[in-house]
């Protein structure tokens, strides 16, 4: 026994020793044949890493300190500092919430679960097991159930969207969109067969959404009895086939032989309103088989998705269309990431830290993308110097200027104006008419830019030469000579109302593209 522990420790130690090794391996693969790209300067790197790890932007002070720092490994140090900060868990939870739920609405228990997962660095396979077979009676885990329960909610008089849930399990955890295989083989993707959809569908169509009750604090799901294979037929050929529960491209799960009643662990009973619990749970079987090292697509999918989140482009795109005829842009890179992530037991924080250390991540100007609604909100309230006031204010009062808004209200307004519509993969936060009108005319934006004790405009108005402070605070960089002149000319135009002129200039910078994008 002792021997075994030593062995395990030795294994872990080797794994740790290898840890720092992934970043150079990635760069070696990427830049073996092409020239290394120009690296981002400190300011560009700082803003990027801050938006990615904190979700907001650094203050002018923090920016100054970093730019002045002469330590050679200051970038690695900053990455480590940000990844260890409590904000990282919140930012990662935000990103995964958008990715997994696709703007289906907010849920506190779910959000708390996600934050906790990233705080404790729960391995991705464990997270997926908890999402796919939620323990609703376990307080620490029940939030994970929202992935399924939200998708089983009925909308109007429409049928419960079991096919949608089935599709999303494939999309989110294996990177395959099997939607078309609900009725026939996929017409443009040879790898995807109707049995791949049906093998999952038989599991999920067997669930029932149950309302919260004395025992369950959240809505929960019950599972029916499965005693036979699921039959399906192609609408194209009318050919019939059947399948047991099965993960796509995998083996069928054996359905135990049972004669009705003996299949139940807890028998359903109408009188006591017991919905019953079967001995054989396809839900649990699939929840074990999807997040497994043997399921190659499981690791590839998450490696690709994390790469996308931090680099801005997937190695396979669309993110949910892994198949042989849609090969990765860089197959060796995806293999490397997937393999090492599996070796590292699906440790996402490790993978993220490694990616951030690469020259690929730190190159200049690459893969610009618009900030998500969450990033824009945080960047905006930090830039305008209203973050603390909003966070502290729990009782908004429209009559008192300083108490007019709370953070919650800002969150809602920014999401309504900037988030993509629900049930669409949010690959890029595209600017829309709605977002433009929000920045131009909304009271939230006007309010934050009014001079108020301690905020941006108040602070700038007290400075004789506000250009440097303005550019550092809003854009994390110093202005060049031309920009300084432009600002001074603008301020000189109407010297009687300096704070008004500053407000307008700050507004123009805040609604300009440079503020919206990840540098």
């Amino acid at each position, binding site marked *: 026994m002792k021997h075994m522990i030593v062995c395990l420790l030795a294994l872990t130690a080797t794994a740790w020793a290898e840890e720092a090794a992934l970043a150079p391996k990635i760069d070696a693969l990427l830049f073996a044949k092409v020239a290394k790209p120009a690296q981002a300067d400190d300011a560009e790197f700082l803003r990027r890493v801050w938006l990615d790890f904190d979700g907001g932007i650094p203050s002018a002070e923090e920016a100054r300190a970093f730019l002045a720092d002469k330590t050679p490994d200051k970038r690695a140090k900053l990455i480590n500092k940000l990844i260890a900060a409590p904000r990282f868990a919140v930012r990662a939870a935000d990103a995964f919430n958008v990715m997994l739920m696709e703007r289906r609405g907010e849920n506190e228990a779910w959000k708390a679960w996600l934050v906790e997962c990233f705080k404790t660095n729960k391995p991705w396979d464990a997270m997926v097991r908890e999402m796919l077979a939620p323990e609703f009676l376990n307080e620490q885990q029940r939030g994970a159930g929202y992935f399924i329960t939200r998708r089983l909610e009925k909308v*109007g*008089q*429409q049928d419960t969207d079991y096919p949608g849930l089935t599709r999303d399990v494939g999309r989110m955890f294996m990177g395959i969109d099997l*939607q*078309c295989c*609900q*009725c026939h083989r996929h*017409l*443009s993707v040879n790898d995807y067969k109707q049995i791949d959809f049906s093998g999952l569908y038989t599991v999920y169509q067997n669930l029932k959404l149950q309302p919260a009750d004395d025992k369950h604090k959240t809505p929960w799901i019950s599972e029916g009895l499965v005693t036979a294979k699921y039959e399906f037929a192609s609408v194209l050929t009318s050919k019939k086939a059947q399948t047991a529960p099965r993960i796509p491209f995998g083996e069928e799960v054996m359905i135990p032989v049972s004669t009705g009643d003996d299949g139940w662990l807890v028998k359903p009973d109408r009188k006591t309103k017991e919905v019953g619990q079967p001995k054989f749970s396809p839900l649990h079987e699939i929840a074990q088989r999807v997040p497994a090292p043997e399921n190659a697509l499981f690791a590839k999918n998450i490696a690709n998705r994390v790469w996308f989140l931090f680099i801005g482009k997937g190695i396979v795109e669309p993110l949910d269309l892994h198949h042989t005829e849609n090969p990765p842009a860089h197959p060796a890179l995806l293999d490397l990431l997937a393999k090492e992530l599996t070796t590292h037991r699906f440790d996402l924080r490790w993978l993220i830290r490694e990616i951030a250390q690469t020259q690929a991540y730190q190159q200049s*100007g690459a893969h*610009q*993308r*618009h900030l998500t609604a969450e990033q824009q909100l945080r960047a905006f309230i930090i830039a305008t110097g209203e973050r603390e006031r909003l966070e502290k204010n729990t009782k908004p009062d429209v009559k008192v200027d300083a108490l007019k808004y709370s953070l919650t209200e800002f969150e809602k307004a920014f999401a*309504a*104006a900037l988030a*993509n*519509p*629900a049930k*669409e993969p949010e690959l890029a936060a*595209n*600017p*829309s*008419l*709605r*977002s*433009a*009108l*929000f920045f*131009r*005319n*909304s*009271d939230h934006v*006007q309010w934050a830019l009014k001079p108020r004790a301690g905020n941006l405009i108040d602070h700038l108005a007290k400075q004789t030469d506000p250009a440097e402070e303005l550019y550092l605070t809003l854009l994390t960089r110093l202005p060049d000579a031309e*920009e300084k002149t*432009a600002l001074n*000319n*603008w301020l000189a*135009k109407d010297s009687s109302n300096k704070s*008004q002129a500053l407000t*307008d*200039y700050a*507004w*123009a*910078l805040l*609604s*300009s*593209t*440079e503020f*919206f*994008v990840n540098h």
Partner: protein
Amino acid sequence: MNPLCTPRDHTFSRRAFLGGGLGLLTSPLFAEAMKQRDKQVLFVWLDGGMSQLETWDPKPNTEFGGPFRSIPTSVPGVHFCELMPKLAKQMHKLCVVRSMCTKDNAHSSGVDRIQRGDPKNRGVPYPHFGAGVAKLLGPGSSGLPPYVWIKPGSGGFRAEDAGFLGPKYGSLAFGDGKPPDNLLRHPDISAEQDAARNELRQMLDQRFAKQREKRVVEANASVFDMANKLMARADIFDTSKLPERDRDRYGRHDFGQHMLVARQMLEAGVRFVKVTSYGWDTHGDNFNAHATMVPKFDQAFSAMLEDLEASGLLKTTLVICLSEFGRTPRINGHVGRDHWSEAWSIAMAGHGVKHGMVVGETNERGTEVKSKPFDIGSAFHTWYRALGIDPMKTEFDNAGQPLPIAHDDMLPIKEALA
């Protein structure tokens, strides 16, 4: 101080681009192009299911005819229910199809089914007609959002209408006829300040574009541009400034006022305007309900037809009026009529359709279509054709997969096409 052009310069440059002189304006090619650009649609949706028997297809003195009489219209031989005296005088502008026979008589699925044209199931949600038109014809020369929806209740940006075409083609909904949030200039900002800081914003963006990927800046510029165009026409969204006389003519009720806003939007050049009226689901007390609601509809819809004709817009605007289905001829125990998709009517007017025309007929009791029945797919074929779009030659693109714009196996209602 501003190195960029002002919005006014843009108007001039656009004219220069379009015109280049009178010669081009009068050339047949250009005239054809303008005709194409200016086609518009008014889509009136009576949610819940208007009764065809109390409106377009009365059956007085029959078993299921109900208490109302029928009255002659401006087209000899064609009768409407007496609840529509004003529209009766305008029948010569209308094209009524009395032989609709569709498939779904449940609201939840029916509303969607009809508005999406009930195509063959391709596993993806189809766009509503308005989103389809927005996609195929674009915003046109006005530059205003191509698909606007005026409705009671809440407003905003409705992406779901667009189905697989993507949120870009969804509707801009005016809840209670009011513009969506943030459409109007903030009261604390003067027009001058607004213009000045927007110019500044543009200048900063152009500087940034020089160093970075252009397309990112362009995407932003285009939405701020559309915001400009929309805000510049804030007058058309301001219901408080509607002329008093028109407010009376259209009727001082939701539907009347919403139709008036719709007229302003059509006049301003919005490509597709949808107006919804709710509450037509008369399972109980059908006759009193219709006696209250139909005259309001009659008033507003006929005022609209008059105005569109007077302004010449009826020549280029296709007008469509329908529900998700009609109502049962049989009168139920609550003196109501239930859902009936077997035999009902839609009305059209304006561009591309025949005027003073009745297509098809129902049997004497109004229970079934006696002539050739038409499903909603045929109506979609008809409407697209009326707008000059050939559904046999035009396809939607669903991420690389070509999909028909209207039901593949159906044909237009030829009798209705001009």
